[in-house]
């Protein structure tokens, strides 16, 4: 079967392309669908990682690649630019991880009970979730300064792209991508300190 998941199967081939184009253009509903697409692939990969074969390492870049290949086969090929898609996927990953972080923090608050018995792993997750929420808030503010600084962080941090891949996704030179990332770190440090 060409379309292994329900989300994709709900769309005709041409529509996938339109959907991605609309998402890039800022259409919120289309954006939600892209997040679902990525999430679906994430599920598939999570099964592979945790479902049995033992390897705990995950290559998120591979995840994004897989997702792209699947979309290409779904008819987006030729229209959908691979590098654009990488940037889009990185943004989707940010969204997914933020949602998850919020769920974790909310779950802990919602329980209302003492947290003394929380396991060590759970405590780590909780701490990182709160860090991520803070980082996301800083990124949102950073977007007002320079949208490109946000894109570069998304590619490097959330999609795990290499410097070269990041440069390609942002349609810029390797050197520019490196500089942008350094700038972003500096700006974020300022925003988080302030």
């Amino acid at each position, binding site marked *: 079967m060409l379309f292994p998941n329900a989300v994709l199967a709900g769309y005709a081939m041409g529509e996938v392309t339109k959907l991605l184009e609309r998402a890039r253009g800022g259409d919120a509903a289309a954006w939600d669908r892209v997040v679902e697409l990525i*999430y679906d692939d994430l599920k598939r990969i*999570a099964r592979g990682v*945790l479902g049995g074969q033992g390897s705990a390492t995950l290559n998120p870049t591979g995840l994004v690649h897989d997702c792209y290949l699947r979309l290409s086969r779904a008819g987006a090929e030729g229209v959908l630019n691979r590098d654009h898609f990488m940037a889009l996927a990185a943004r989707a990953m940010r969204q997914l991880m933020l949602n*998850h972080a919020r769920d974790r923090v909310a779950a802990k608050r919602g329980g209302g009970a003492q947290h003394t018995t929380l396991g060590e792993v759970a405590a780590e997750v909780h701490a990182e979730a709160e860090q991520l929420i803070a980082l996301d808030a800083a990124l949102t503010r950073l977007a007002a300064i320079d949208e490109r600084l946000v894109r570069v962080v998304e590619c490097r*941090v959330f999609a795990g792209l290499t410097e070269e891949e990041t440069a390609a996704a942002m349609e810029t030179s390797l050197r520019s991508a490196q500089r942008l990332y350094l700038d972003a770190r500096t700006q974020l440090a300022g925003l988080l300190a302030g």
Partner: protein
Amino acid sequence: MNSTPRSPLDLLEPGALLAGPLFRSMLGKVANQSRLPAGTRLGAFRIAEEIGAGGMGVVYRAERDDGQYRQQVAIKCVSGGGGPDSQALFRRERQVLAEIRHPHIARLLDGGEHSDGRLWFAMELVDGARIDAHVRQLGLGIAARLGLLRQAIDAVSFAHQRLLLHRDIKPGNVLIDADGGVKLLDFGIASLVGDSNAVHAYSPGWASPEQLAGAEVGPASDQYQLGLLLDAVLRNDVAPAVLSAPTPATTGAPAATGSTARRVAPECWIAMPAARRAELRAIVERATAFDATARYGSVAEFGAELDRWLQLRPVAAHGGGFWYGLRCAVRRHPLVASGIAATLLGVALLIGAFSWRLAQERDLARAAAARAEREAASAQAINQFLRNDLIRAADPYGVNAKDAPIGELIEKAIPRVQERLAEQPAIAAELYAALGATLLNLGKPEPAAQAMDLAIERLTALHGARDERVLQQRLYRADVEEYAARYDTLRAQLDAIKADAAPLGAKHRVAIAVDRYLAWCDYITGDFAAAASGFEDARQRSIGNASVDDESRASIQAGLSLALSRLNRYQEALDAASEARRLRSVALGPDHPETLGIGIESATALVGLDRIEEAVRILGDIYLRFRERFGPAHSQTIIAAHELGVNLGRLERFDEAIAPLAAAVEAKRAAFGPASGNTMNSMAQLALVQVRAGRVDAAQATVDAIASGGYVAQNDYDRRSESLLYRIMGEIALADGRPEEARRLCEQSRGEVEKFFPEGHLARLQTRACLALAYWGIDPSDRARQDLLALQPSLDAAGRVGAFWQAKVDVAAGASNP
């Protein structure tokens, strides 16, 4: 252990976020919706296979795997994300759930957290259909449907009294177990998993308004779901009216959880009078009121209301009022109430109430008629099962360990018939008769006789001693005597039945059946002439007799055929067999085993007519069909295999004959044991074709197996077969170059053969021929040559068998006298 970043900036290190605990926990949550492979160990259990998946998780069948004891369980795995913060809380609640014991609640046995974070719950495994599918499939009436729902309500009420909520009642969680009772699954699982994301996990359409609103959830929420369940159980068909809902989910997008209420649809319910429908609708609507405080005070109250409805009493949910109360009074006590009505409200009201009641009665009568029809059909189905499936499956050859438990079960069932059906002697009699027939076929003549005697007793009490049903059952009872080979008792019983059946007239089918049994009795006791005339007489009386069915006619013709074959009247026997086959084909169909079985009679007659090729064709055909249809161990298959092998041997197709005879031997050894004469007979025939096919070692192994199997002759039939066995062993010794041993064996054979076979019989001739060859083998003297020459005229006259021995004689004579 991963070091936890102290600042959000640490997350900016490439790879840090994706290698950290938050990302892993997200993957864990995502993977919770994935399947666990078979063999995965969860606590003391090992997953065997997936058996279902729902909004809340995946369900597996699992087996206890800690070496303690064997136990099958259902394991439900659910997402652990957003679960209870405290492990202690989880354990405490799990303990409370595990202690709940109710016949209609599937027990929680164990639970825990898998290494990837998902929670699992081991529950009593219930193998059954969903309640809604069950009621529709069986086409249950309204009372039966409400009865099942009452069980679910009782179970929920029981739990509420122990301060436990279900939170996820829906048809998928209410199964009907093997005993036809309700089992509620997943009790309290929703609360164990935790509230924070429980809304996402609820099945679309089944969440109560307070669940959807994320408000405090109490017993009224379970009542709401039970109300929806009642609606679902009353529906005639698959629910059309579930509003669309987003997938319960875990996507990051803010979930749109509102506005997904299931609609109650009384117009889809099964048929019932309009007024009754309106009442029931009021009950369902009250239980599913949007405002929790508008519902019944408790689930128990909801149940009590349904009881009132079933008892035709006024229900609280109905707006009520004077008219309503009066109508209820009328339907409960129509005569008294119509009197009241006449006095108080006059004739107009009386007519109104009466016509209403008439309409209701008509609906009820329709329902009752449909139910009665169904019940009759199911009773018939039970009987058909017992008589056809069970009895045919448990054929007389099947007396082995495998069937013993069935026989014991049936034996134990006999006293229970009396307990359960003391008030219904007619049904009891039917059951006794069927159980008796089954027991007989399972090789248990004594309990069979006991059951059949009870059947006769009940039938006699019901219909009188001379009733044809009684006489018919006494005929079946006589089968027990035949089975036990008590032929004197058999004949005495048949004579008694014949005397009692005399008033019915000679042409009555029972009278004809008695005579058929008597003729069969003659046949098995060896009086073939009497048997033939008995069958012939029965045949004459059944001509143009509409009371005799085709199956009985066929049995008469089949018996006649066998008797005529024994009288060497083979052509008539063949005609009778053909007629029997035609009749059975009409009555039962051309491929029915009883129809095909006549092939044995036809083949017997054909062999007598020396039309052995035709006999072999028929036997080859029915052997394959029987083996395909019943398997190699079935009695008919065994008979066909044996006869086929023997007749292939007659055609000197020895190589082909080995396989069917070997199959017959194997099946008979399993059925009768290696020591049985019946088994020995087939083994002797196998050894014969083996030695004649030139496989001397195999033939020797076969006769050795007879000796080591512990065979001892039980009767004259065995001794007759044994007399032939000695000659066959002689043939083997001769072929193996041991003429002295061959002589000894053939002399032993000759003494025995002369007791059982008349002068001129081929068996005598073959023994003589073999003996003469043995003498010639020991010493090719003139005396031995004279003996061989003396055989010549007899062999010339003996057709194929003669030619076979003649060839041996020629070889022997030529070899030693060049």
